[in-house]
């Protein structure tokens, strides 16, 4: 069956009209979804969503070798965990033990303590206290602005007398919420 040129022309017109209509339909749909399009006067309004975001720039404290009953803390060796506010809101950071450090003493105990050594902004809880399973407040109102968005966290450990010899690895999860 041979299709005449006239029929092809009609079909092409339909295709062009459908294409243009589809473009306008998609544009009008995006107008409803997107906020922040420029107005005719050149003003642009943008909605930036809030983000409570944080990351550990130094996530490890290594105390080396300790004998049973011995203690050590971050301050003498200046070995701290450093958390950075990478979001765009002030943060309240809490710390909770997620992997036990010692096999003979479960958190919370005086054998594994934590505190806020220094924060470049906000309120730093500088008192050494037990690392809890449910979380304890380390810092509040940690600013998100660069240069003042870091907090250094210190750890104080005492090896329980009956703790078996060997490598110990405890893990602390820091929860960052707006606050």
């Amino acid at each position: 069956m041979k299709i005449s040129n006239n029929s092809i022309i009609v079909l092409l017109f339909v295709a062009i009209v459908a294409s243009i209509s589809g473009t306008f339909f998609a544009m009008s749909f995006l107008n409803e979804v997107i906020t922040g399009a420029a107005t005719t006067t050149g003003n642009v309004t943008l909605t930036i969503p809030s983000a409570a975001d944080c990351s550990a720039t130094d996530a490890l404290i290594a105390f080396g070798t300790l004998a049973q009953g011995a203690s050590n803390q971050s301050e003498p060796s200046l070995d701290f965990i450093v958390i950075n506010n990478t979001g765009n809101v002030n943060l309240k950071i809490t710390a909770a033990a997620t992997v036990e450090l010692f096999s003979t003493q479960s958190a919370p105990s005086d054998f594994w303590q934590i505190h806020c050594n220094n924060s470049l902004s906000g309120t730093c809880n500088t008192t050494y206290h037990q690392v809890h399973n449910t979380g304890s407040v380390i810092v509040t109102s940690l600013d998100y602005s660069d240069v003042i968005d870091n907090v250094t966290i210190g750890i104080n450990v005492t090896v329980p007398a009956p703790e078996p010899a060997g490598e110990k690895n405890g893990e602390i999860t820091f929860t960052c919420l707006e606050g």
Partner: protein
Amino acid sequence: MYMSKKKKEVSDKLVVVLLAVAVIVSVLGAYVVYDYSHSYGIESEPIVEDYATGSVVLSVVENPDFREVSVDEDI
């Protein structure tokens, strides 16, 4: 006498030109939509909570002062 009216046929050249126009319009439309949708960030949900992890490592060695004395050793 019956005269059949002959229908005027559009030339092949015009068909090709119109086909090219259709393709250009279609591609241009797709580009406009793509560009418009990528010019501005589509609103996303706020992030209300995030997590970071820290570790504490140490090596424990036996302390002779805490060594348990067995009953046999005292005898």
